């Protein structure tokens, strides 16, 4: 099928894409009501843009791009307390590392806990722990983390879209992983 043959059929949108878009949203925003609203807003916004669809991408890709922008808007709104969040991030880092020499505090030092050698990918129990730990993250961290790791977005783009400075960006990335790892270790044992 050539790229030009992509067409839109709004009569089947819900049936074909609603669950997909909902799942996409719920992984990024752990709020069912808000996720539903976003799916609805996406379809309605898409209807207004139907004329501008050039058929270069699939219907689903096109709808997902619209949704993605809406999710970023939500992140932006949630991150109005952004400066505070990065300050908290820096401050909380003291939990993990000794302030004077930057060494791991013994209570927080990573230990081998079972993800290292088992075939964990797709492991159901592990996935549910991982999801629980992801949902505990502050909205902005989750946004930065998923945009970088999942969407593979350009760092400069993420920083401008979420209004984060590059140095704050790396602080958040670092902080997110420290928390995620610690949460997994706590809950896996």
């Amino acid at each position, binding site marked *: 099928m050539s790229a030009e043959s992509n067409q839109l059929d*709004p009569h089947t949108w819900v049936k074909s894409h609603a669950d997909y878009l909902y*799942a996409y949203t719920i992984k990024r925003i752990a709020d069912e009501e808000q996720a539903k609203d976003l799916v609805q807003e996406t379809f309605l916004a898409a209807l207004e843009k139907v004329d501008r669809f050039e058929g270069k991408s699939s219907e689903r890709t096109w709808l997902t791009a619209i949704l993605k922008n809406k999710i970023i808007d939500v992140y932006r709104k949630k991150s109005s307390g952004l400066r505070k969040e990065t300050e908290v991030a820096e401050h909380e880092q003291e939990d993990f590392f000794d302030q004077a020499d930057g*060494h791991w505090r013994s209570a927080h030092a*990573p230990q081998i806990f079972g993800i*290292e050698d088992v075939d*964990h990918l797709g492991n159901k129990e592990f996935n549910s722990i991982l999801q629980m730990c992801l949902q505990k993250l502050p909205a902005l961290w989750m946004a930065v983390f998923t945009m970088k790791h999942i969407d593979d977005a350009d760092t400069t783009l993420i920083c401008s879209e979420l209004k984060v400075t590059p140095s704050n960006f*790396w602080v958040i990335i670092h902080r997110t992983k420290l928390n995620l*790892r610690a949460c997994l270790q706590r809950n896996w044992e």
Partner: protein
Amino acid sequence: MSQLKKIQYNCKKATFLIEKKMLSRITFREHIELRIHLMGCSVCRIYGKQSRIINDMVRQLFKSSMPGEVKLDDSFKKELQERIEIELNKN
């Protein structure tokens, strides 16, 4: 030498560089510093290994469609499609 000592004992900096290296580029100097640190720090070696695995797992989790786990309820979908039809008929 004091610079070297700093990185040698600084796990905060080392884990920061581990994260940055996985997603972006670090400088040659940072690369060397990290290697020196990791040679002497088994805790950060564990961290690095686990951190890579966590990246894979998170990617895997987001890629999988998790069938049956998250779905919209039928009544919501029905109303949604009806709403779309109304909008379509306006034009």
